[in-house]
């Protein structure tokens, strides 16, 4: 009884602290999740390969604004899965006719570097090619982010073009790393 008496107010105090913290903090605190799960991905061909089931979020051909998951099996070196997955998304065509690749022609993945929960993705200059309308831009960017964040060690994605930060693509702000965006994924009913 004595313990319970103390437990409830303690819980309330903890809840209150949480409230304060969530209410008033700037959102700039760096992501510190999984510092151990850091992997640098570079061209290194001597690693043993494994079969890995991956999901690629593709842009539909029917003009709706939901990304469609395409599951694929790829052979990949243990630490290269992020790069291999992104290359599959950007540099291959989907098998299904209901999906398409809308990355600007010639877009290449120059590298993916995963550190402290953030995947820094480096695209070739074609990625930032001027396109008309917001649809293609938001679908393309969210396809990248949602595809990479299928891996628990990737919480956010920073997009670089030719190694440089781009602040804005179309109307989109790419200054800060982006988190998974569930509003582009259709909820199963």
């Amino acid at each position, binding site marked *: 009884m004595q313990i319970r*008496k*103390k437990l*409830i*107010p303690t819980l*309330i*105090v903890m*809840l*209150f*602290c949480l*409230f*304060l*913290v969530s*209410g*008033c*903090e*700037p959102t*700039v*605190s*760096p992501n*510190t999740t999984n510092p151990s799960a850091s992997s640098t991905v570079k061209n290194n061909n001597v690693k043993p390969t494994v079969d890995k089931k991956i999901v690629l979020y593709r842009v539909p*051909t029917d*003009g*709706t*604004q*939901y990304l469609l998951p395409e599951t694929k099996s790829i052979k990949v070196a243990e630490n290269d899965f992020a790069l291999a997955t992104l290359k599959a998304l950007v540099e291959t065509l989907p098998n299904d006719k209901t999906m398409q690749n809308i990355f600007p022609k010639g877009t290449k993945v120059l590298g993916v570097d995963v550190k402290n929960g953030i995947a820094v993705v480096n695209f070739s200059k074609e990625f930032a090619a001027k*396109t*008309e*309308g*917001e*649809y*293609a831009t*938001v679908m393309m*960017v*969210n396809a990248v982010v949602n595809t990479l964040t299928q891996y628990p060690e990737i919480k956010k994605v920073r997009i670089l073009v030719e190694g440089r930060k781009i*602040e*804005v693509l179309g*109307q*989109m*702000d*790419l200054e800060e790393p*982006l988190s998974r*965006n569930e*509003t*582009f994924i259709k909820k199963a009913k």
Partner: protein
Amino acid sequence: MVKRIIILCVLMLSIIGISCVNAASPQITAIKWGVNSGNNLRIVLDCTQLTSAKAELTDGALTITVNGKLTPTISRRYSIASSTVKSMNLVAKGDKTILILPLKRPVKSSEYKLFVLRSNSGANRPDRVVLDIVNGGLNDGAQKNSIAASCIVPTYTVTGGIRGKHITLDPGHGGSDPGAHGLVTGVQEKSITLPVAQKVKALLENKGVIVSMTRTTDVDVWGSDATDVQELQARVDVAEKNKADLFISVHCNANTNRAIGGFSTYYNPKTPYDEKLADFIQNRLLKTGNFRDLGTRSANLYVNKHSSMPGVLVELLFLSNEREEKLLRSNWFQNKMAQAIADGIEDFYKQNGGVS
């Protein structure tokens, strides 16, 4: 003791709410401090209204900048008997007041917390800015990396109906930036977003809204030599300067696939209201005719992300779609879309407990 804690907590929880009101400039009417049995220091500034403050740790001192003037009767110097802070000096700087707190020992950013408390008429407490310095930290790992803490009180209002609200309308593109173009007539996006926004303006003004526009002619808002960020920030600045309650950006979509069409509304879920506003406007837009619903989406669009008030960016149909291009160019359909946007905004205020 247990009872006291419960009462205290319930009281504290009850006074935390979403604070969205602002009128005259805030004033600091009283300053109190106290140290509890755990040697933790609390400084409380009573204010005439909710205001914002920021804290900064500098060499040997903690500096708090409060958006509010000091009332003349307040003492400017305090000696403080605590384990962390020796004294407190107040300096008036324009509309702001700076509290300088020289430290007895280095204080970690995880050891202090700055926040606001809303007035509580039951307890006869005014709106307050509160600084807590807790020895050994606040058990908050996430805060350790930040060197500055701040507490921003939003200045927008969502309650009380649409009448008297300040709304900023942003006709997308303009000047050197034409936006997308129609594939049949070559009509430019900038020359559709402007008349639609102007029609929304007239409709909102009829509902008693005070409307500000990021542009009223075919111009760049920042200037033709602006970077993308400068141009978009200039549009956000118009809303901030006018202390807008809502920010509505008007665009048209386009795609290389000419079959694609429909309405979509983008938002950034930075306040509890952005998504709701998007839903209300999108629902009204869909009622303008037989169009595809591309939905509302959380998108990291610059103007929505960087403005402090709730806002959306509407994508009015596709200029790359022949049928939709024709409609976008027609005066009667522009009126229809403008009406839908204005009605969606009114729906939003009605749902927020307002009477209009």
